[in-house]
Each structure stands twice: as C-alpha cells, then as structure tokens.
C-alpha cells in the first residue's frame, strides 16, 4: 500500500473535519492526496492494495463511541449502529426473530473472519466488484475513463454483471445485505459536519449509474452514516431471503432475492416488498413483481407470475442470460417460503 498517515477519530465531528472526499470521488478523480474514512476497512484496503486508491490520510472511524449498538423495540423497530459488525448482527436473536431475511442475508455474507471485521455502514457503502472496476489496468467509466469493458458484446467478460438498468455501467451492487435492508424499507441515518442529521430511505440512498457514474450512493464528502433503522415489523410481517451462488461456502451472489410481505389470514399478500440483488448496479426494487403479487393469494401460480413480471424488464448481456431463469426460480421460491 502507499504511505498514508492514520487519524484516530474521536467523534463524528472530529472525523468529518478530517476528510476531504469520498472513496467514490477519489476512485473517479484519483487525486492521490485525499483523506478518506475507514470503518472495518475490508473494502477500503482492497482499493488501496490494488493501487486504485492512494490516500494521503486514512481517518479511522471504527472506534468512534456510540456507533456500535444494536437496539430493538417492538414499537420503534430496529436500530443498528454503523460500526456494528456483521458478526454481531448475525448472532443477534432479536434480529433473527423479527427480521429473518436480514439474519439470513448476513449469515450468507463473506466468511466468519470477515464478519468479525466488517461493519454494516461499510457494507452498504462498499463499491461494486466488477473485475474491470477493480483493476488498475482498466480505466472504465466509473474511474473517469472512456469505456465499459464488460459491456462489449463480443469481448466483454460480463457473466457476473447486471441484467437490469444496464444501459451505462453494467456492474452489480456488491452488498447482498442491502437487498434485505431495502426489502425491510430501511432508513439510513446520515450526519454531516454541520451537525445536521437526515434520514434517507434505502431506495433513495443508492444512486443509479445513469444518474451519476461516479457514485453508487448519495454520500457526500462531509457526511457519515451513523445508523441504519428498520421499522418495527407488523403482526403479519413475514420475510424470506435466498442467495444463489456457485459455491455455498462463500461467494459473491449470482442473484439474491429478499421478500418482505404483510400477509393476511387467508395467505393473501397485502403488501409486497421485493428486492433483487446482483441484478442491477444498485439493489433493485422490483415494482413489477410487487404489483403482480399484491392483493393476490400466495400460490405457485401467482408466485411464478410475479417472478416472470420481475424479469420482463431484464435485458441480459452476452454471458449472463442464465440470471433470468435463475431469478425467476429464486423470486418464486422466496415468495413461496413466506407462506
């Protein structure tokens, strides 16, 4: 890694004073003299080791007090501090009992060792894993370059890439936990250097490539995630999460689905929240699937119809056509697991 100095932030204000740009801005502009945040550091150190990021200063926010609590209240819902580790989330019984899809998503993420280091804030803010994006030898759009290497129909290695919203960048968002969080309608709490606090829904937190090629989320330089909040589940809230992989042990998602329904007594879906991971450059809420299943009985037939509706907007690339039947099967299965 390049030489950098290390700043041990003592508070959110302290931390915000130190940074000059986001990791995303730095990857795009490559000034090589930036100060950037580090929480768990798993995503950050990958960038620095690959030489794509050469920060002048790393601001360690990992030990800022007050960001590492999980609290659950039947009425208020769930609050997870941005420095809570994935391991702490995975082993939390209240999350398992009340937010099953989230519990499952976290348990499928990474490895036991990584879960002891990675934090929730870092996880949702991480950048995508497109191998061209992660390569110092390929200057793609996301790094201020002039092309997308993956999208090239003959030569692009795009088997892991997006089938939806793939008009410009064809990467897929890397956080499969975000799939579940978005399905639960989570809110990201962001604090800035003026002390202002704002709550941003997960749907608004992520930024499509079409909107801004340099970002995957709305965080600005002088902003910090402090907490992620999930509303309290209703009496009839049920959830499911399925992640398809080539290897069970640990693998990036080939396609994951989180489903959160309000289910009425006779097994009808009253309201549906269906989010697809590894389908698009951001965790993708499938309005098509939601519309197709809302107010319908949860049956094989209806689940399949919803799944097909989800994929009706899919535009696969040369090498990732398999994701369409994969998602159809997975969305259907996730919906059926709910009932």
């Amino acid at each position, binding site marked *: *890694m390049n030489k950098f100095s290390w700043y041990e932030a003592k508070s959110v204000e302290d931390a915000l004073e130190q940074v000059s740009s986001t990791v995303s801005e730095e990857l795009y502009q490559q000034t090589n003299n930036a100060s950037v945040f580090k929480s768990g550091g798993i995503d950050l150190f990958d960038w620095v080791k690959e030489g794509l990021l050469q920060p002048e200063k790393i601001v360690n926010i990992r030990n800022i007090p007050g960001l590492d609590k999980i609290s659950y209240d039947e009425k208020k819902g769930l609050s997870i501090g941005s420095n809570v580790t994935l391991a702490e989330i995975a082993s939390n019984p209240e999350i398992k009992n009340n937010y099953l899809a989230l519990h499952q998503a976290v348990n499928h993420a990474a490895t036991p060792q990584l879960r002891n280091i990675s934090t929730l804030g870092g996880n949702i803010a991480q950048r995508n894993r497109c191998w061209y994006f992660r390569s110092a030898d*390929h200057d793609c759009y996301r790094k201020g370059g002039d092309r997308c*290497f993956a999208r090239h129909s003959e030569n692009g290695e795009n088997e892991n890439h997006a089938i939806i919203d793939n008009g410009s960048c064809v990467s897929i968002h890397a956080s499969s936990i975000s799939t579940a969080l978005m399905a639960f309608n989570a809110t990201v709490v962001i604090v800035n250097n003026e002390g202002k606090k704002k709550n941003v829904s997960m749907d608004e937190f992520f930024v499509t490539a079409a909107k801004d090629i340099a970002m995957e989320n709305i965080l600005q330089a002088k902003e910090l995630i402090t907490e992620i909040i999930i509303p309290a589940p209703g009496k009839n809230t049920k959830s499911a999460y399925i992640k398809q992989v080539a290897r069970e042990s640990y693998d990036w998602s080939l396609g994951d689905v989180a489903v959160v329904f309000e289910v009425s007594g006779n097994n009808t879906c009253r309201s549906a929240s269906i989010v697809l991971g590894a389908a698009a450059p951001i965790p993708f809420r499938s309005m098509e699937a939601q519309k197709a299943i809302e107010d319908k009985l949860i049956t094989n037939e209806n689940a399949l119809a919803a799944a097909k509706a989800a994929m009706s907007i899919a535009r696969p690339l040369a090498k990732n056509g*398999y994701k369409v039947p994969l998602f159809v099967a997975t969305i259907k299965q996730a919906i059926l697991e709910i009932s």
Partner: protein
Amino acid sequence: MDTRKEKFPYGIPGHNLSEIEREIPIEEPPVWPVNDKLKIIGKRVTRIDALDKVTGKAKFTSDMKLPGMLYAKMLRSNVPHATITSIDISKAESLAGVHAIHLIENAQKEGEENKSGKYPMVKYVGQPLGGIAAESLEIAKDALKLIKVNYEKKPFVIDIEAAMEIGAPIVFDVPITQQQDGGDVGETHDGSKGQGNVRGPSTSSFFGGPRGDLAKGFEEADVVVEKTYRTQVQTHMPLETHGVVVDWNSDVMMVYASTQNTAGVRNEMASVFNLPKSKVRVFCDFMGGGFGAKHSAGSFGPMAANLAKKSGRPVWLMMDRKEEHHSEGNRPNSIQYLKIGAKKDGTLTGIQQRSHGTAGVGLGAGVGRIAQVLYPCPNFATEQYDVLTNAGPGAAWRAPGNVQGAFGLEQAIDELAEKLNMDPLTYRDHIDKSEVRKVERQRGAKLFDWSRRKPAGSGKGTVKKGLGVGQSTWPRFVTLDSSVEVKIHNDGGVEIRSSVQDIGTGTKTILAQVVAEELGLQVNDITVNIGDTFFPVGPGSGGSVVTGSITPPARNATFEAKTALLKLVAKKWEKDSSALFMEDGMIGHKNDASLKMSFKEATKLMRTSQISKTASRSDDYGGFQQPWGLAFGDLGSVQFAEVSVNTDTGFVKVDKIVAAHSCGRPLNLGQLESQINGGVIQGLSYALYENRVMDNATGHMMNANVDQYKVPFSMEIPEIETLIVEEYSALSSTDAYGIGEPANIATAAAIANAVYNAIGVRIYEIPITPSSILKALNKVS
C-alpha cells in the same frame, strides 16, 4: 553380474495373489512379504513433520529471514504484445531504501542485431522485465511504481479460436521450443511445424504412434460417437506462491526455494550463472504446494541471484497472488474432437482424436495418452496441436494433458455405452483389460452402490440425482537418477539424506518408514534430512515418480548399512551374520535366544562415528518397459461420483465420491487418503468452478485473485471414500509407487457423467456452472 533367485508376492490380495520368481542382483535386500506381514509399511503412521505444521513452527521459503535480507519485487509487462523502446529507472533507483535494480536484456550475440532491440519482446501481460530489491517489500513496491516502461504496442490474440484463424495476429514468427517451466505439460512438440499460431501436430507418445487403419475401423463399426469436448485453462494457485531467497555472499550460492525439484533448480542456477554444481546449494524444507508448476528456477530464481549479487545482500523474492495466476503456469485448455466406433457387441474398432489447446506463449497443450492406451483398440490415431496465444505460459499440472483427455474420452465411452444399451460400468468391464481396474470397479461399485443408478434424467422433482463413473491410467515412471545416503551413527541414531523434497505428499515420512522397517526401529528413531542438494540427488516431485524411485534406494542403502552393523555384532558374538536379525530395536540370533543386544549398544561397536551407505535406484527386477525409466504396469483408477443438480437454479453439488486406486504396495494409508482427497477435490474444482478468465480486448487475466478464481471451500467438499487396491508386481525392493497424479485424472469425467445421468443432457464443456446447466436445459433464451 552375480544374481540370486527369489520368489515375490505377485498380484492382488483377495483376487489373484500368487508368487513370481525373479532373478535379482545378489546385493538386493530380501523379499518383502505383503503388507499384512510388515510392521510399519502399509500402516497409518502420522507425519513426522506434522507437529511443526500444526504449531506454525514450519519454516517455508516465504518465512525465511536472513540477516541483512532485502525484499524484492518483479517488474512485469502490463500489455500483451509490444516492443519495449525504453525503461527509465532513474526515479526508482534514487528512492531511499532501494538497493539494486536488474533489468532483463536481450543477450547480445556478436554480429547479430536483436529484432526487439535492447529488451526482449513482450509477449504476454505479466511477462517479467526486471526486479527491484529494497529494505522492505513496501519500498520495493513504491519503487516499482516509479519505473517508466515505454511500449510500442503490437496486435495480439488471446482467444484460442481467434488465434487459430488465418490472419490472426502472430504470437511468434519463428520456430520455438518449450521455453518456460518444464515438466510434462502434455505432449511437447516441435514448435517449428505448423501454420501461423497453430503448431504441430504431435501424433505419437512414448507408447508409440498411430495404430492400424482408422478408415477400416470405422467401416466395421456398428455404432459411432463423434463429439467435441472443451476444457478450460486452470491455474495452479498453490497457497505458497513461487519464489526463492538467494544468499550469494560466499562463493557458494545458497538458494532457499519453494520447489518440487531442488536438484533441478540447482542445475539450472549453476548453468545460468556458469557455476559448478558444487557451488550452488538449494534448500527446501517445507513448501506450500506446487502441483506441477514448481519444477524450475523460473525467472525469479536468476532475478533474485542477480539482485543478491548487485546488492551484496541476501534477497527474498516471492510472487504475489496476481503474478502467481498470470505468469507462473497453468493447465492449457482443450478443444477435443473424438470419434469412437464399436461393434454392436461393444468391441472397439476405432478411436480418432484431434485436439487443439493453448499453453499461451509455451508449448505442450496436448491431451495426453488416455485415448491412446486406456482401452485396447486396434485402430487409433491422434493429432494434438498447440495454439500459441499472448497469455502466460502453461506448466505441468497434476497429470498434464491426461486430465483433459480423460474428460473427453470417458464421456465419449459413456455415450457409446448408451448407444449400445449397456450400463457404463458393464461396458467398461467389457472393453477394459486392466486387472486392477477390474477389481477397482468391483469393489468400488459395491462401496458406492452403483446399483442405485437410474436412467438418465428420470428423477422427479427439482433436484435431480445422478451417478457417474470415470477411469484413468498413469504410467509408472521411474527416475533413475535417485539416490540416498543412510547413516547409522554411533549413538544409535539413524539418518537418511537426499536432495528429494517433500511437497506435502509425505515423502519425509515414507522414507522414515522404509528405514525403520528395515532396521526394526520406530519411525521416531529415524532422522530424515531431505530437500538439500548437498545430499545425494533425488528425483523431482513430478510424474508421481518419487515413491517408486526413492524408496528402493532408501531400502537398499539401509540394508547395506544394516549388513555392515550386523557384521560387527556377528564378529563380537563369533557367529555368522546371516543368522542375525533386527527387530523391535534389538539385534538377535535366529537360533540362539540368549544372544541379544540393543541397536544402540551395537552401534558402540563401530570403529568410526558413522556407517554411511549410498544407494541409487537400481534397475527394475525383470527389466523396464522402456529403458529410460518406464516400469511395467500402470497406476489405474476408477472413480464414482454422485451429484445433485437443481434444475431451477443450475446449482450442482457433488454429494459423494468413491475413489478406487492402486499404487503398488501402499506405504502410508493416512497419506494416501490425503493424496486421493486432494486429487479428487482438485478434479471436482476443475469440473465445476475453476476458470482463468482472460479479457480478449486487453489481454489481462481478470480473476487473478482468490476471490474470483473459484476453488472449493468447506461446503463444497463431498463425502469421499477411498479404496486402495494393493497390487504386487515384484519390480523393486519396495514395489511401491506414487498416487499424486492418478488421484486427479478421472474425477471431472466421473462428475460430468453423473451430471448427464441426473439431468439427461450431456455437458460438453467445463467448468459446469449454473449457467451451463440452465443453458443445457434450454432455460436460457
């Protein structure tokens, strides 16, 4: 020559065990009975170096730290094809902490101009260009960033089929011979024949050339299978990367190497630097995996030595994971056309094979000898072509060529069996003349319960189960240049020395077992000092030769030392030494129970501090199949695979493998199981996960890491049952052979056949990913 006649166990216990008489040199040790009758041989003996491994004490090359040692990094090209017009190292040189920089330059030949100028032409991304040695690895990396290389880019080609086209960019416009890492990469050809990037074909092996008349053979056939099978490029990904530490401060160059061939590296370094062999010492105590790629000094060996010389300090040079993937070797891919004909009673009438493969800028992308020799067939021909591409050079990879070849042939045989309406196992009973594989099929089928197998694709439900089988053969290679020294010390200690290395297979332990068995001692009584070229030269760990090559000399030298010690005891007891024996740490007399002495006591009778005997590999009893060291017989195996395929998601799980193997006389059961597990898991990995992904547009490997170059982790490991068939051939004083490569050959074929049985659609290309399955089931539009 003085000889004597002896009767040896011969055949397979529980099947056809008998005796055979051999006429052997008079000095050879007594006949060993079958393993049942031996104390240490053929048992579960814990590895003598296991303690060091589980406590972290084991020092690998990457762990070495010498006083004053510098850390080095290689400079490599990041374009696939170019002339280098200049390299500016001025900024790097002046960085604090940098001690030496060495660039690779074209050797200047008098009167000749180098086509590419001062520096060699760049032929692939990752080609070594130079190296930097600095106080720390971080400083070396900082310095690398400051070097400016100016390239004049040239057209390049990555994809094998694109490279085969007329008019493709030319990788080499001259005849080439195998340049990089050696080893048996497949069938090495003369790179001068051919057209454009296509070189060859190779049409013969050491088993001979074409047989009979193919056209006639196919005329006689009632059924024919004609298909094309494809396999991918596979990198080795050993956990410890390639590398060395070179200490060249005295007139002896000391090289600590993570290697499969200490003597080979020694010879290479001596040759490159014009030193006598005695002035280069290579040392390898522990090494973190090689799988065929670590036979030579590579480019890093000479680079480290050059940096050591320039800086006057020892130099550590280990590859990082990216370099390991794109530059340090790979198993070439293959496109194999197979046409097989048989009569309706199943008799094979013709086997035709034509293959193309790319070993990048190297040669040897063949598909081995499986189609040539696995099943007898009177009419046979093969054409194996190399296709040059601008990618990292191939290297030997656990059963080179033959893993690719087995994937093709064993599926074709299954397809033939189906056309003949025969069960694939029954069909193999019909066409396979190997006695050992017959026993492996019988015992394996029982353990696996092959009778569970249902018609292809007949399972109900989303997840379909399938059973499949695959077979293999591997020659019994013997390296004749295999020697050991055995010392009995006058404190009762015993030591065995050789340059042979232990690459994780357990060579150290089997040597201790052989010596201990011969002397009536325990494994813990034996000190094994190997992996040092100051000791007698042993074989490289390749071709699965080590066990068969080094254990007979180990036994023979021990026997000689034993004889010398017994003579001293005999003299003391005033008896004939032929009546003395060693057992349980004691020396006794066959006919006089009162005569007893401990081994340790006996050594006090020695006149010198040590009895030292050196032995080299003698000829096989009854001669060799081929005089350069091909023993009679083979190492056959049969592997059974059980898979579950999710037809909605394409997810494939291997539930169980039964692997039936033979290695002659088994020496260490635990280690053999480990080897078989390893070969099976690598075969499974090859069948389902691994793939070197090259970007055709830029020439880079896109998954040069552990994250996206996929191999199995814990959840992917199936239940593996190993079944060892003892086979005595009476060919040497130990009659033992290796198993490393045989363990890896049939697995992918067995899995592919099982997948067919599960879903009723055959997959002709590996790796078999969810995408492959969904495509095969016509679910991808």
